[in-house]
């Protein structure tokens, strides 16, 4: 077991290193110049050159890359050249907004998808199981932003039940905080949940046709009990992988939904930083998202090794 953990952690470190190089290079390749943006249209080339020198932009990219990574390892995400604020401070508020959004959407999709997916697998030869399946197909086809806009139009504008946009921190007013999060979370859950329903369904359909479920029934478990005792873990194994991927796509989805609902999350922050050519902010925040996704996936891999004796056996050889 320790070897499995070590192997996964090594993979994690290598992927992080690879991702950081990629992010750095892509951000460097973005058109536009920070010095130019800071000084405005009428700056002379000499002024721009001087500012570039002062910001360290003229050093070779390898040096700048190592500088950035070294700082990050020490927990310093750099300092925004535009505002002069540390990125760690800038990010503190938005990371909570996006974090809550992703957390509740993940929990929400699981809560919706698990029972619905199991139901549609068990009842796949009946009209109700079929209906769940068809609905999930429809839900998947709707983009999250469209779902968001429709929800705003109906629930917020037409009925006036919930705020259409904005955000209130949890510490200030928990009630308002929840009210502002409902619609963004629901629009993410509609889409991610629909996708997850399909995965849950196919995981359970696969399990249901396994020979050992018939064995379990032959010794006296009812169909449902056999599925619960001998199918859950197996279905869980394939679903855990999917969930890891879902969290990744939820971060992307969250960025879009943040824009629809004008939430001050990481998504809006990155977009603003791109427009302003505040490269260090873009770099560090994107890197943060990548770290989150890769860590989730590593945890998923480890969970799988814990749950599946066959993987454990393979790794030990």
């Amino acid at each position, binding site marked *: 077991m320790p070897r499995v953990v070590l192997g996964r952690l090594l993979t994690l470190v290598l992927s992080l290193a690879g991702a950081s190089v990629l992010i750095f290079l892509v951000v460097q390749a973005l058109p536009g110049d920070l010095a130019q943006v800071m000084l405005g249209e009428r700056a002379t080339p000499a002024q721009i050159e001087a500012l570039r020198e002062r910001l360290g932009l003229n050093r070779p990219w390898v040096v700048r890359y190592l500088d950035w990574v070294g700082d990050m390892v020490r927990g310093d995400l750099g300092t925004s050249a535009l505002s002069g604020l540390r990125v760690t401070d800038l990010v503190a508020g938005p990371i909570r907004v996006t974090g809550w959004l992703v957390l509740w959407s993940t929990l929400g999709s699981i809560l919706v998808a698990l029972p619905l997916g199991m139901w549609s697998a068990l009842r796949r030869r009946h009209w109700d199981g079929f209906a769940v399946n068809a609905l999930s197909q429809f839900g998947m086809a709707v983009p999250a932003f469209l779902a968001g806009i429709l929800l705003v139009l109906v629930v917020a504008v037409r009925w006036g039940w919930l705020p259409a946009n904005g955000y209130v921190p949890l510490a200030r007013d928990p009630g308002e905080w929840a009210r502002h999060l409902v619609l963004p979370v629901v629009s993410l859950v509609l889409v991610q949940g629909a996708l997850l329903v399909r995965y849950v369904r196919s995981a359970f359909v696969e399990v249901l046709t396994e020979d*050992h479920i018939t064995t379990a*029934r032959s010794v006296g478990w009812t169909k449902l009990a056999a599925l619960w005792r001998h199918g859950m873990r197996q279905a869980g194994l394939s679903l855990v992988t999917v969930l890891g991927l879902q969290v990744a796509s939820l971060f992307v989805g969250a960025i879009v939904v943040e824009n629809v609902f004008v939430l001050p999350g990481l998504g809006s922050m990155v977009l603003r930083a791109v427009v302003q050519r505040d490269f260090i902010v873009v770099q560090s925040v994107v890197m943060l998202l990548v770290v989150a996704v890769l860590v989730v996936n590593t945890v998923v891999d480890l969970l799988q090794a814990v749950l599946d004796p*066959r993987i454990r*056996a393979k790794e030990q050889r």
Partner: protein
Amino acid sequence: MSALLEVRDLSVRFGRHRTLAVDRVSLTLDEGDRLGLVGESGSGKSVTALAVLGLLPETATVTGSVRWQGREILGLPDRELAKLRGQEFSMVFQEPMTALDPLMKAGRQVAEVLGLHRGMARGASRPLVLEMLAAVGLADPVRIADSYPHQLSGGQRQRVLMAMALVNRPDLVVCDEPTTALDVTVQARVLATLDERLDDAGAACLFISHDLAVVSQVCARVAVLRHGRLVEQGTTAQVLGAPQRPYTRGLVAVASLEHAEPGSRLPLVDDFARDGGAS
């Protein structure tokens, strides 16, 4: 007094328009009886067995009658049938490689069956589980009990399955080609164990196989299936020694391949089955 198991005119159809997989099959087993069910691949042996235990998928339509100790059990709700399965009758399956839960240790899978029907806690059932594993011929029951299925050989898995089927001393054990997936030497030993355990328990057995030699070793009576229909039924000596139907004669001839001349054309069942099974 009614028979232990009485199957009357059992028919099974898959889907809506498909042909019959099992066509008006009738069988009777008394206490301690051993009935062999033979036939080619696809003749409906497994489907018949699964229909008796109510384990067919929802796509199957089953008609006729299955009486267990005089009580009609065909069409009984899953919950009611589950009470009988594993307790009064049980089944050993064809494929030992996939029939065990890959994520659960072998011993626990046996213990579950005890817990299920006798409400026994896991700790309390451990000695019984080990005893049962030893009884089905596993030399190192402790190690086997603590192994996952992928750590066991095919023969060991099949013995674990037998332990699960037998641990509650059911009155009937349906064995669906329990040794087909094993190699010949292992096959003989597993069969011998099964034979002993059935004798001990005085359990009846519906023994499915396409191997006539195996059937004659285990069973007193034989029924022959072809295209889902029973074509012949009688004592093993009668049916295999002096087969009445051409199809059965074919099966017997195909089975005795050891007598075939090298290089000569092997007999096919169809060579003997000109009567088209229309019986």
